[in-house]
C-alpha cells in the first residue's frame, strides 16, 4: 500500500477529539472496581462485627488512610505513563512515600514497645490474620486490576511494565481499602507489613502482566 493513500484514508473528515477523557476513564474504572471489591468483601469475609460501635473506627480510618494515600500517590505516575512522551520521572519517588512513612511509623512503634508485645503486633488479631489479609486483599484486587487495566489500554502506554506495575499497585490499594472494613488486626506494624506486602505483590503481578496485556 502506498503511504500517501493511507494518509488520505486517515485524514478524510477527522472527528474532533476530546483529550481530557482518559483521566475520567481511569477514575471511573477505579470507582467501579472499588465498588465490586467492597461487594465481594461483604459477600465473602464480611465487615468486622464491631463496625457499628465507634470504638475501633480510628483503626478503620488508619487503614483506609494508608490505602488511599497509596492510590493518590500512584495516580500521577499512572496517568502520565499512559500518555506517550510525558515526563513522569519525578512522580516515581512519590509512589514509595506512603510505604516509607508507614514502615517508619511501624518500626518506631515496635522499637518503643515491650519486646514481648512486638510479635503479636506483627501477627495481628489471630494466628491466621496475616494469611487472611494477604489472600483477601489480592482476591479483592482482582476486579479493580481488570478494570484499571481496561482503562490503561484505552491510553497508549509506551512503558508496559511500569504501567502494569502501577496499575497493580492501585488495584492492590483498592483491594486493601475494601479489606480494611473486615480486618480486626488493629496495629500499625500489622498494616505496614501485611497490607504493604499484599499491595506490593499486586504491583509485581501487574508488572508481569503489563507487557502481555497492555501491548498495542
Amino acid at each position: 500500500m502506498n503511504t500517501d493513500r493511507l494518509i488520505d484514508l486517515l485524514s478524510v473528515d477527522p472527528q474532533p477529539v476530546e483529550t481530557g477523557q482518559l483521566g475520567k476513564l481511569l477514575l471511573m474504572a477505579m470507582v467501579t472496581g472499588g465498588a465490586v471489591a467492597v461487594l465481594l468483601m461483604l459477600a465473602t469475609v464480611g465487615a468486622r462485627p464491631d463496625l457499628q460501635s465507634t470504638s475501633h473506627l480510628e483503626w478503620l480510618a488508619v487503614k483506609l488512610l494508608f490505602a488511599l494515600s497509596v492510590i493518590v500517590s500512584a495516580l500521577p505516575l499512572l496517568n502520565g505513563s499512559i500518555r506517550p512522551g510525558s515526563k513522569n520521572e519525578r512522580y516515581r519517588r512519590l509512589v514509595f512515600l506512603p510505604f516509607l512513612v508507614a514502615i517508619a511509623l511501624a518500626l518506631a512503634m515496635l522499637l518503643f514497645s515491650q519486646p514481648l508485645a512486638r510479635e503479636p503486633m506483627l501477627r495481628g488479631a489471630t494466628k491466621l490474620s496475616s494469611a487472611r489479609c494477604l489472600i483477601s486483599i489480592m482476591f479483592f484486587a482482582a476486579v479493580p486490576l481488570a478494570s484499571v487495566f481496561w482503562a490503561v489500554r484505552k491510553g497508549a502506554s509506551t512503558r508496559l511494565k511500569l504501567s502494569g506495575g502501577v496499575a497493580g499497585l492501585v488495584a492492590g490499594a483498592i483491594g486493601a481499602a475494601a479489606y480494611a472494613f473486615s480486618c480486626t488486626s488493629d496495629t500499625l506494624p500489622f498494616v505496614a507489613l501485611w497490607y504493604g506486602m499484599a499491595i506490593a505483590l499486586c504491583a509485581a503481578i501487574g508488572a508481569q502482566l503489563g507487557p502481555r496485556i497492555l501491548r498495542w
Partner: protein
Amino acid sequence: MRPSGKNSLAFLRSIANKAIARAWMAPVAEARDASQIGLEIAKRPPVDEATHPHENELRALMIASLDGDASSYHALLTRLTGHLRAYYRHRFARIGHGPTEAEDLLQEVLIALHNHRHTYDRSQPFTPWIHAIARYKFLDYLRRTKSSFKDVPTASVEELTAESDIRAVESGLDLQRLMSKISSKARRVIQFVKLEGLSMREAAARCGMSESAVKVAVHRGLKALALQIREESKV
C-alpha cells in the same frame, strides 16, 4: 518538635495538591480557532528549537487536527511521514531490514497515531509524544520479529544506508487484501467515507445506518485494519 511536624505536614499537603492538580487538571477539549491556537502556543514557554526544530509547527497542526481540521491533519501526517521514514530507514538499516519493512512500520505508526490521538495532552509538547510512539513501535517490532542488533551483517548495513530517505516505497501491505479481512460492515463504511470521500451523513444514508453508528464503524474498522497490519508485519 511541634512546629517542625506542622511544617512537614504542610509540605506533604503541598506535594499532594500539586500532584493532583498536575494529574487531573488536564485542559478540557473545546473547539478553538486558529488565533486561539496561536495565542496558546505563544503563552507556553518556548520549546528548544535546536532539539525540536519543527515542534511549534507540528504542534499547531496537531491541535488543529484534534479540533477536526482535515487539511491540517493531512499536512501533519504528510510531514510526520517524512520524519518517520528517515527515522525508521536509519534504524532498520542497522538491523539489516529493508525499506519495505520500514514503510510497513511507518504505516503502523500513522494508524497508531490516528487511533491514539486522544492520548496527546494539548498542554504538552508534541514531538516527545510522537517520538515516544515511534520508539515504542520500533521496540515492539524488534520484539515481535525477534530481531536484535547483534545478528546484523555489517556489509548489508552499508548497502542499505545508501538508499535515499525521501523516496516513498510501497509497503508490503496490500490494502484490498487487508480490507477483505475486516468485517463487511466496517469495510463498506471505510470504502464510502475514507476511500470515496463521502461525508459521514451521506455514508449513513447509503448504508441505512445512523451517523453515529457510521462513526463507530469507521473507528472500529481502522482499529481492525491496524491489527491486520500488525499481524502481517509479524511474519
